[in-house]
């Protein structure tokens, strides 16, 4: 590996870590904002920002470093209670976190941050760091687990150093310091850059070889440093190791006074040996950080045993997932061959096959679990959007999230961000009222947007709801008539009017705002959800709010399907869409026009779809009474009945893309490979249902 490669890898790791730190920052700040924070929260935020700064410094991302530094300074005040997390303060903090995220992206070359924005926020942060009267630094002792800052010693009347100052630093690394890959030599070298150093190593703790623990830490150093740099600069050298070492930094005069060892006080040339040994004792006491018991209890969740994780290249996981897919197919082929070989049912091969099936399924579930990730980061991204939109629209909005731990496959996860963003924008822009309007309607000024996720019957359900004014159905209908989307005299139910929002080219906002009126309508949201095998529906109550509900498959890799035969072709219908299957009697089938028929199913008329004809497999009309009818339901609860010749099997199938080597086919969601090794097409139920309502004017089963 070349040096360039190594560098690129490290850079990549840095950005990955940034992502985590940014999440940590935002989570922490949000907790602070709603007052659910404890002492550790601020520290965690501070550490996260600090780590970003440190890493960015190594890669010379100047803008990022400078801003992170300002941010950190402000956070520091929050940390030692010189500033309270008031709403005003938190607003600036959260915006700063957003900007920090953008600067990280800028460093990656993904976007550019405007100077004006950077300067404005920097000024805000600087304002935070100044406006209140600075309390003595010494006040920082209680509850500060980050704490080891023996600032008390520095207050001994030593004027902030502009001139040369002599420091005595005692530094004893603990085993953790080495374990985290830190290197004392690097720290010593860094110190040497600040000024003239004289370093002595205390090796007295070194055991004999047979008692030597290779992972132990036995050395300590006393460093005398003469520098013009301020104390901060000296401390900064130890920033990354502070928690993993014993450290005292004192001016030489203070050190001497403290130890009654006097010696030659303020010079560089004192006798070293006498001072070496007492120093650790002096340092040991403040090291015991006083941590209140209560804080410990409260932070229990934050400090819950961190499970061990590894970083794995996504591609590797995907490759593994693909291979398991192949395994599933192969195993199905094997069962087929064993069946074809005509072995007796009782033979051992069948038992073995059953356990093989069990294993394959478990492996597959395991892989899926690896790829699954909680929706939390996704939801977190939305908090930012809410924040920005609230600022832009002048509305007061609070985002409430539920079920953040709900997991979904990565393939779905990635494709959710855009539709979700759009729905949130929609909810704030069109759904919520202005504070005045809300007050007039007897609602609190602050509107609420709720984002919730949950697992139900093998799918993930995500709801976006607001407590705004609801859909103005009269206006929606008028608009639809005006745009020629429906006939002027059309009789539509409330649900049907609401569904008009999903029609292409529909937008009700009378003034096209620059937020959601960008030509991307709810139709795009719906089609992107549908392309994920999902459904979206809308419910609205005037004056009370609107809810968009989505249900999506947990994964795009496998699907439970019903294998059916139509005109000698084998097809798969997704099980989740199937409501029931039945063998219709002749009197249940009614003709409605020349081409269309409906099926009476428990008093409801459902359009009958001849799959064989729709797919072009045969020209003549199928007789539903000879075959089987599958009642399927699509988004919005619409149903239709599909005529097939026979049901062959019900099984889990691996989803294969048709688009990779071919193209999208209307009515076909994807393909799969069956036990006989042949390709079977998976039906796109929603297209069939939509098609049915398009050319059959039949009463739909309205929910």
């Amino acid at each position, binding site marked *: 590996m070349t040096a360039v490669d190594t560098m690129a890898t490290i850079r990549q790791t840095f950005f990955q870590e940034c992502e985590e730190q940014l999440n940590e920052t935002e989570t922490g700040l949000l907790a602070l904002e709603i007052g659910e924070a404890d002492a550790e929260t601020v520290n965690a935020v501070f550490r996260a920002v600090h780590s970003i700064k440190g890493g960015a410094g190594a890669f010379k991302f100047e803008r990022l470093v400078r801003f992170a530094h300002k941010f950190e300074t402000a956070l520091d005040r929050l940390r030692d209670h010189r500033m309270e997390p008031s709403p005003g303060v938190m607003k600036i903090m959260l915006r700063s976190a957003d900007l920090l995220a953008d600067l990280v992206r800028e460093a990656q070359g993904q976007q550019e941050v405007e100077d004006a924005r950077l300067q404005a926020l920097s000024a805000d942060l600087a304002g935070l760091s100044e406006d209140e009267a600075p309390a003595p630094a010494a006040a920082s002792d209680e509850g500060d687990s980050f704490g080891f800052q023996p600032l008390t010693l520095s207050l001994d009347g030593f004027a902030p150093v502009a001139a040369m100052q002599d420091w005595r630093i005692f530094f004893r690394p603990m085993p953790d310091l080495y374990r985290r890959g830190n290197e004392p030599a690097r720290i010593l070298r860094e110190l040497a850059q600040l000024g003239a150093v004289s370093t002595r190593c205390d090796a007295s703790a070194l055991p004999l070889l047979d008692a030597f623990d290779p992972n132990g830490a036995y050395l300590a150093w006393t460093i005398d440093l003469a520098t013009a740099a301020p104390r901060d600069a000296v401390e900064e050298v130890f920033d990354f190791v502070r928690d993993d070492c014993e450290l005292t930094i004192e001016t030489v005069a203070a050190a001497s006074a403290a130890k009654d060892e006097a010696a030659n006080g303020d010079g560089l040339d004192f006798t070293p040996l006498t001072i070496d040994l007492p120093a650790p004792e002096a340092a040991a006491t403040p090291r015991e950080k006083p941590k209140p018991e209560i804080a410990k209890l409260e932070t229990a969740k934050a400090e819950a045993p961190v499970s061990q994780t590894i970083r794995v290249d996504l591609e590797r996981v995907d490759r593994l997932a*693909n291979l398991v*897919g*192949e395994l599933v*197919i192969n195993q199905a082929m094997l069962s087929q061959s064993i069946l074809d070989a005509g072995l007796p049912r009782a033979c051992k091969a069948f038992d073995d096959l059953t356990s093989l099936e069990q294993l394959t399924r478990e492996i597959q579930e395991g892989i899926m679990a690896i790829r699954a990730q909680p929706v939390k980061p996704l939801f977190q991204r939305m908090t930012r959007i809410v924040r920005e939109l609230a600022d832009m629209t002048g509305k007061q909005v609070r985002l409430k999230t539920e079920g953040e731990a709900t997991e979904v496959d990565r393939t779905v996860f990635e494709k959710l961000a855009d539709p979700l963003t759009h729905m949130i924008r929609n909810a704030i822009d069109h759904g919520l009222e202005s504070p005045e309007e809300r007050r007039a309607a007897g609602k609190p000024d602050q509107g609420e947007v709720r984002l919730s996720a949950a697992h139900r019957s093998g799918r993930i359900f995500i709801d976006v709801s607001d407590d705004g004014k609801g859909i103005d159905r009269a206006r929606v209908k008028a608009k639809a008539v005006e745009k020629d989307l429906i006939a002027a005299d059309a009789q539509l139910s409330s649900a049907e009017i609401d569904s008009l929002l999903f029609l292409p080219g529909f937008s009700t906002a009378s003034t096209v705002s620059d937020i959601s009126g960008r030509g991307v309508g709810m139709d795009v949201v719906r089609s992107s959800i549908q392309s994920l095998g999902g459904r979206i529906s809308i419910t609205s109550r005037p004056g009370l709010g609107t809810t968009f509900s989505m249900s999506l498959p947990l994964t795009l890799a496998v699907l439970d399907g019903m294998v059916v035969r139509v005109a000698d*072709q*084998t097809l798969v219908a997704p099980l989740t869409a199937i409501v029931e299957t039945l063998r219709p009697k002749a009197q249940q089938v009614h003709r409605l026009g020349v081409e269309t028929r409906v099926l009476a199913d428990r008093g409801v008329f459902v359009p009958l779809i001849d799959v064989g004809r*729709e*797919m*072009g*497999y045969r020209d003549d009309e199928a007789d539903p009474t000879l075959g089987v009818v599958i009642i399927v339901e699509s988004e919005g609860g619409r149903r239709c009945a599909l005529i097939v010749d026979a049901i062959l099997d019900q099984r889990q199938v691996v989803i*294969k*893309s*048709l688009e*990779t*080597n*071919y*193209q999208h*086919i*209307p*009515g*076909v969601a994807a*393909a799969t*490979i069956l036990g006989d*090794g*042949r*390709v*079977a*097409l998976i039906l796109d139920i929603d297209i069939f249902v939509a098609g049915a309502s398009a050319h059959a004017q039949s009463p739909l089963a309205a929910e």
Partner: protein
Amino acid sequence: MIEHNDNSAGVSKEFIVFRLGAMEFAIDIMAVREIRGWTPATALPHAPSYVRGVINLRGAVLPIVDLAERLGFPPIEISARRVVIVVQIGSRLVGLLVDAVSDILSQPSETIQPIPDVASEVVKLYVQGVFAFDDRMVGLIRLDHLTPPSIGEAA
């Protein structure tokens, strides 16, 4: 390697030669991923007639194009002896159904001539040149125009 003009001497390319009815055609061997026997394909709805369907190529869904029909000749009669040449076109894999593979040969590029004017427009679209080989005439298939059978021209 020295840069050459298209018709300069010295560069030889290897080709897979196959039969479509009585005619012979060739494909640059660099585009060929594998050659396999015919297996029944799953028909695709709403597809042009020269798309015979899709088959399972070790887990990938591979569309099969009847090359004879694509070139405007009568469709290939299916039998177990028919051959599918799997070629890579851009990032896609496509199986070309042909009657039989007859040869692999190396041909200097300067011997490739433009198609004679008598050829039909369809042939001109998919054949980029011809060359002589043992008294036979071989047409060189222009792959990039064969597929996607779809985009822009779903029949």
